[in-house]
């Protein structure tokens, strides 16, 4: 009889990491459908190119690291699907490929691969693309409802996005219901506010991302926008515009909520969300680019370790109190 030995426990939860990844992929595909409705077939090609580049780079890096490449490892697919959604639909294919390559080769694999990356690969790729190709390529948004050609030069009128208007200190004249439905110019995936909200509810319900951090982040950002509106407009309107414009809502769900690059404990997540909200709004206000969200995300990713260690210290205090209350003695420490 063949008996294999294994450590306890001998029964496992049925949930798998691959199911977490598939949850995110399902929500992203939903966003692709919306973007396809607004911008046509070019969106699909961008996504396919980005995913292909990410997978190729992933396999290459794994081969260089002398470890077995796993095509069913879906983290590269998630990165690849995230990247084009943060770009305008008229972006050249080269930009997408560059961002994907940078994200995987620089931000992911040198740091140890899946689960060990300090910085979010998608955010790093977007940052590099913005710096490389400049705001005039990156923040040139085509008008919605305009079917873009799949190939060749794109000669479509460039429309100012509400984020740009806000950065210039103006007030975007937009209908809020249109904004909620995603019918305004912006990154091709990040404008469908209601759909993203549904995705957020789905992911939180599936416990793929925990509720503390998005709630803390959005509440802080909204409070900041309420207290310090960038232009002279009603404060509630300022809150709506700030939350809906640009990448903030999308990134708050998919980039900030990425479990790899976020603190682990509940209160660490809350503190992280609050600080992230403040930093993002400060970047928006004082940054020179139209959309500073991804840069703020990179900076916040660097602070995750500190938040976690502070959370551990706090948990240790609580544990000590618990131990005393239960056993009546302190936890004995070696001098």
């Amino acid at each position, binding site marked *: 009889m063949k008996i294999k030995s294994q450590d306890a426990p001998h029964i496992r939860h049925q949930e798998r990491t691959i199911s977490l990844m598939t949850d995110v992929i399902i929500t992203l595909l939903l966003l692709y459908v919306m973007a396809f409705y607004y911008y046509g077939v070019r969106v699909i090609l961008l996504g396919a190119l980005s995913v292909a580049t990410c997978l190729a780079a992933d396999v290459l890096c794994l081969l260089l690291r002398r470890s077995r490449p796993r095509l069913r490892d879906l983290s590269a697919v998630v990165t690849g699907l995230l990247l084009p959604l943060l770009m305008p639909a008229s972006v050249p294919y080269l930009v997408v490929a560059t961002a994907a390559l940078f994200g995987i080769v620089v931000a992911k694999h040198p*740091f140890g691969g899946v689960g060990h990356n300090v910085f979010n690969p998608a955010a*790093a790729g977007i940052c590099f693309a913005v*710096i490389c190709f400049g705001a005039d390529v990156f923040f040139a948004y085509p008008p919605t409802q305009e079917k873009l050609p799949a190939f060749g030069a794109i000669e479509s009128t460039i429309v100012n996005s509400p984020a740009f208007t806000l950065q210039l200190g103006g007030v975007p004249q937009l209908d809020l219901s249109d904004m909620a439905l995603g019918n305004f110019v912006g990154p091709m995936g990040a404008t469908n506010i209601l759909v993203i909200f549904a995705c957020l509810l789905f992911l939180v319900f599936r416990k793929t991302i925990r509720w503390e951090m998005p709630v803390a982040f959005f509440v802080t950002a909204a409070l900041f926008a309420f207290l310090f509106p960038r232009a002279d407009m009603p404060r509630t309107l300022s809150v709506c515009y700030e939350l809906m414009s640009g990448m903030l809502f999308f990134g708050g769900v998919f980039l900030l909520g990425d479990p790899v690059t976020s603190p682990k404990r509940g209160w660490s997540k809350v503190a992280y969300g609050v600080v992230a909200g403040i930093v993002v709004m400060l*970047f928006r206000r004082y*940054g*020179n680019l139209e959309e500073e969200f991804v*840069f703020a995300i*990179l900076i916040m990713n660097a602070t995750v*370790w500190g938040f976690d260690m502070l959370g551990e210290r706090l948990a240790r205090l609580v544990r000590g109190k618990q131990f005393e209350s239960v056993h009546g003695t302190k936890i004995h420490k070696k001098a």
Partner: protein
Amino acid sequence: MELFAQFFVTALTAVAVENAVFARALGINKTVLFMKSPKMGILYGAVLTWMGVLSSFLVAIVNVLLEGRTGIMYIRAPLFSICVAAVYIVTYLVAHKWKPKLFQIIKPALPVCTFNTALFGAFYISSTGSYHFLQTVGYTLGTGVGYTLALLVIYFARKRLAISPVPRSFRGLPILLLYIGLLSLAIYGLLGHGLPS
């Protein structure tokens, strides 16, 4: 009043946006990249800030004297070196004479932090940007504070990277440089356009 406003704005700029380490790659070598403890980083940063602020008084005067003259570039560097060297000698002797305990602490950090590219870089920027007195002092102060923060960030980054399976070719300096590079990418995004240099 707006002089002090300029002072603080310049200092904040030097701390965050034009951070000496992250934005200009100044003042880094193995000694400061591989700190033993965060205390050491704070010591180095404090010594650099002290020397910088003291010598920035002299440097500001030199800037005022050299304003608009021809052939600045031939005498500016020696004059800056003389200013810093004077402060260095004074600090060395005073600490050696009156505060021997303190002197033993700062002795290893003194030369490294005095003749440091971060410090001189701050002086050159204040000279080319034709900052006035308070701005020069504020920029140097901000550079020192930003340098300290950068050293602490690098220290904790090493702590973080120690528990991830970094590929063997990247262990140590390369992965640390990548980390700093990505952070500097983020800070550069905040700046958004070219650096004044």
